[in-house]
């Protein structure tokens, strides 16, 4: 058993799981949508700067998928709907 820490560690902000934010939106790679188009959609829909939109597009392209948004279920459903409106292949799921 480890000894008790003498100071209380601050939790890493990234590790804090908000109970009301359990959903994520995933965009999947597909052989039809163009890199330029996907980058444009990420800029348009999420308001990302070009560099961030391009990085996400590369993640989708090279890793097969990328998490593009998170938040309450309703918000994630709205994003998936918007992404399907653009013809991107998007799904939502609980962020387990």
């Amino acid at each position, binding site marked *: 058993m480890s000894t008790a820490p003498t100071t209380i560690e601050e939790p890493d902000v990234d590790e804090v799981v908000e109970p009301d934010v359990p959903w994520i939106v995933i965009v999947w790679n597909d052989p039809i949508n163009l890199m330029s188009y996907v980058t444009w959609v990420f*800029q348009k829909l999420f308001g990302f700067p070009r560099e961030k939109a391009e990085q996400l597009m590369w993640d989708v392209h090279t890793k097969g998928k990328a998490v593009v948004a998170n938040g309450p279920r309703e918000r994630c459903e709205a994003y998936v709907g918007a992404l*399907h409106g653009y*013809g991107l292949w998007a799904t939502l799921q609980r962020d387990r």
Partner: protein
Amino acid sequence: MSRRTRITSAGDGGVDLRLDPELRELLASLAGQLSDLIDDPEAQDGPGLARLFPPASMDDPLEALGFEQLMGDALRAGKRESAAVVRATAHATHLDPEQTLAWMRCLNDVRIVLGTRLDIADDTDFEELFRDPLTEQAAVMYAALTELVEMLSLAADPR
């Protein structure tokens, strides 16, 4: 595609279009066919529409069904509306930002339907599709739409 095809940024966030009249006629026709396909009850289970309206969950059919009930009508209406804008502005030399968005969505949707029918993959040999009489026409249209969506994505302002 004709060397006369040009799509450039316009000052208002939209684009200026220089396209052959024949290509414009083709785009209007494809937009109309897309609308018909979306409304065709026989086509609902086909691969093209399945890819246009993919399930919203990978592993939860109930979530996917709920999403379809929640969003399906609005998604179909949005795609119909974009197709109607393309038909109405097929001969325009300038598109405002909203019309530009409709063109990008609609032409990309047609690419998705054609690409799905052609079974496009990352390693697809397009020369073979161009040579095969069964796929030549769809492949030529797919390639033309690819170039247009690429040009629109580079010219249109995403802000």
